[in-house]
């Protein structure tokens, strides 16, 4: 694809690179329905597997539209990569899972062992922020066991290493499913998005992830970007209304079990909002992250151009 | 004449895979005596020696001896390439648990005895000449005060003078300490000079085809005696045939 001059005519082919997570069923639906047929002859969906892949793709210009955590996109922009955030698709997907009934609120966590993944990454930062706001010192008042990925966290949690795990979707749905199969009762004890909202005095929403878009596409084909965003909005409505069909649809693209997709959809807070509209919430989120780890968005808030608006 | 045999070999046969090497070899040797094995190249002398020393087992037959410290000088010097000359000489001593300083001292002394210069002490095997390596191997064997010497062409790479010296040294040790020795050599003069008993192997597989006793005490074996003894050996048809020298006349000059 790369350096071909973009014209006002329709493109032969266009690829959207989605995240390896449930919200990508929205993109799957959009592609399946030829929602971009006015602009692109053939739209395809590719799911990247690791952030490295996404980064390399964006840097090399292969990925024009890509699923990304919001802070990652801001970070890339702050480091000089010409990208913007198109929209936010998911508004909070972090849950505190327990194997017993005793945890009902954040303050119950004092003195407990918790397993979680991705140290210093956004989920960890959010969790620690919540703890702090609730008056707990993450270093002293409870014991955090970090592991590499949610997979390890889930396995250790299910194997009984800890009673509590902090897991993002779809790992939290998977853990419930596997727990059921293994006869272990697993509960979503705390919705950390809600807890976060309560403690910060905001709505229970975290502008976590959405689609990023390269500056060069925004400049050369603004109408295509707009069409993608609008198709997302339409597809999201369908997905929310037809979770079972969405599960089947996503299974082919995401290589996830339909059951897991279907079960996890309600927990994603799926709501397509353009970045410009979401700007206040994004900035609040970024500020909170920076409070914990200044470098996570590249040291400063992204400037105006970051927030794409329809 | 011989007292109770200290080494006795009975009906010994050996083969490597399908190839027979030794066939029904029987002989014995009393304590304090030197037996010498001669025979054509490849007839199984080294193999026999290694069986006497217990390094391999005969296919058939028995070897009986009461020696507690048999020692080898192999046909190849078999030095440890990663040890210098002195440590190679001291190898057997170390195996006996002799302390470091003492064994180094004794090794250095023995190296002198076999005619190595003080500046050869620290040389590694690849820096030694062929004859020097052979002498290191000899010194290594003599160091551990054995009671049975198994010498496989131990002087083959030495010059005339050194060879005579080493022969005298070995025979003196044997007589002084009442050792027993089995010597393999291709040099009839050496055999006649050192041995009390010469065993001739030949054939394929090899059998013991002749045996010559040499009665005169070592001290009285002068060059004339050696010369005439060699001629006597070669005049024995079995021996001459074994060494394939029937057609050459009885030249002791070899």
């Amino acid at each position, binding site marked *: 694809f790369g350096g071909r001059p973009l014209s006002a005519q329709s493109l032969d082919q266009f690829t959207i690179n989605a995240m*390896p997570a449930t919200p990508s069923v929205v993109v799957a639906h959009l592609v399946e329905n030829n929602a971009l047929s006015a602009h692109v002859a053939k739209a395809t969906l590719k799911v*990247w*597997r*690791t952030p*490295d*892949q996404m*980064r*390399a*793709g964006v*840097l*090399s210009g*292969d990925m024009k539209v890509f699923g990304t955590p919001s802070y990652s996109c801001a970070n890339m922009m702050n480091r000089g990569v010409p990208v913007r955030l198109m929209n936010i698709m998911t508004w909070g997907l972090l849950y505190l899972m327990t194997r017993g009934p005793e945890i009902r609120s954040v303050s119950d966590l004092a003195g407990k062992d918790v397993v979680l993944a991705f140290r210093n990454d956004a989920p960890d930062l959010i969790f620690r922020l919540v703890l702090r706001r609730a008056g707990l010192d993450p270093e002293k008042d409870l014991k955090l066991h970090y592991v590499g*990925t949610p*997979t390890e966290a*889930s*396995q250790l949690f*299910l*194997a009984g290493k800890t009673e509590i795990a902090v897991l993002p979707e*779809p*790992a939290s749905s*998977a*853990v419930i*499913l*596997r727990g059921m199969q*293994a006869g272990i009762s697993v509960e979503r004890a705390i919705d950390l998005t809600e807890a976060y909202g309560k403690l910060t005095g905001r709505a229970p929403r975290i502008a976590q992830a959405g689609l990023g878009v390269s500056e060069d596409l925004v400049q050369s084909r603004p109408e295509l970007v707009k069409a993608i965003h609008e198709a997302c909005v339409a597809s999201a409505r369908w997905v929310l209304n037809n979770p079972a069909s969405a599960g089947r649809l996503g299974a082919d693209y995401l*290589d*996830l*079990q339909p059951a*897991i997709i279907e079960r996890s959809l309600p927990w994603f807070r799926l709501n397509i909002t353009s970045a410009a509209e979401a700007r206040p919430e994004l900035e609040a989120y970024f500020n909170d992250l920076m409070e914990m780890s200044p470098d996570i968005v590249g040291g400063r808030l992204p400037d105006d151009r970051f927030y794409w608006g329809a | 004449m011989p007292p109770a045999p200290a080494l006795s070999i009975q009906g010994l046969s050996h*083969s*490597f*895979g*399908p190839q027979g090497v030794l066939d029904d070899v029987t002989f014995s040797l009393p304590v304090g005596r030197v037996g010498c094995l001669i025979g054509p190249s490849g007839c199984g002398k080294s193999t026999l020696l290694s069986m006497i020393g217990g*390094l*391999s*087992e005969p*296919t*058939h037959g028995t070897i009986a001896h009461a020696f507690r410290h048999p020692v080898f000088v192999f046909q190849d010097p078999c030095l440890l390439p990663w040890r210098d000359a002195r440590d190679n000489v001291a190898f057997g001593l170390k195996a006996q648990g002799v302390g470091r300083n003492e064994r180094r001292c004794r090794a250095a002394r023995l190296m002198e005895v076999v005619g190595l210069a003080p500046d050869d002490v620290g040389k590694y095997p*690849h820096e030694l000449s062929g004859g020097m390596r052979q002498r290191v191997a000899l010194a290594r064997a003599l160091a551990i005060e054995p009671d049975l010497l198994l010498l496989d062409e131990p002087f083959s790479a030495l010059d005339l003078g050194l060879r005579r010296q080493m022969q005298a040294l070995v025979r003196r040790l044997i007589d002084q300490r009442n050792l027993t020795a089995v010597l393999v050599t291709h040099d009839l003069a050496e055999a006649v000079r050192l041995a009390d008993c010469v065993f001739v192997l030949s054939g394929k597989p090899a059998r013991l085809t002749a045996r010559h006793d040499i009665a005169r005490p070592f001290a009285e074996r002068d060059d004339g005696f050696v010369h005439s003894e060699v001629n006597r050996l070669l005049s024995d048809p079995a021996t001459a045939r074994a060494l394939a020298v029937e057609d050459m006349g009885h030249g002791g000059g070899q």
Partner: protein
Amino acid sequence: MNWVRDRASRALDYLWGGWGAAASLLLLTALWEAGHAAYGTLVLPSPRDTVAALVRMGGDGRLLPAVVETTGNALGGFVAASLVGGVLGAMAGASDMMRRLLQPIATLMLGIPAIAWVVLALLWFGGSGLAASFTVVVTTAPIVFSGAAQGVRTLDGDLRRMARAFRVPGPMLVWDVYLPHMLSYLFPALASALALSWKIAVMAELLSGAGGIGDGLATARVQLDTVKALAWVLAVVGLLLALEYLLLEPVRRHLQTWRREAQGGDSAMTRGLL
């Protein structure tokens, strides 16, 4: 010990050897089963389930393409690493200067975590299997390099002089003199590198999303499907064991031909060592 006894003992030895490998595999399976009993399916699925999943995956037609792809990536990297590592190692073994020049590069390649390469590799090779092959080369070439260098360096000086005296031309010097000696050093290095190749290929596929078994493993992990994940691993391991017994072991025995003793004396001795 006569010839018949010798033959018989060698045949027995071979049989025993096969038993040894079988015993060892059975022991491992028993350990695995015990681990399963202790930790449950979510940490360590049972051998039976895993094999069943493997068979199912085979039936689905998902196993073979992935295995072929990973095998291609691994073998491609391995062959390249053997050539590059072998040739440069031989040069480093022959000249001190070369060694000094190449050794730091080898150390570097061994020491830099794959994760530091992965973005570069992705940029150079896209998402294709080449990125995985590249990672394999980077990790295994230095191992082959060390072995080759040591092999050349340790050739007996006398043999070298002999070859020189006979004015042996270059290719024959390499083929008849250096290589047979080097092989004894190269072989363990190559065997290690070969086994390592699959593991590295799988990890690289996982990191770079390049498809193959790594992809399958990643998917199974996301779904917390430990049975399927272990089935993928089992596929790799089975392949490696097959390679070990169908390729490496015969080669190992063949390479030993010229060392083999006709009698049993020596092994009795080494038994004494243990």
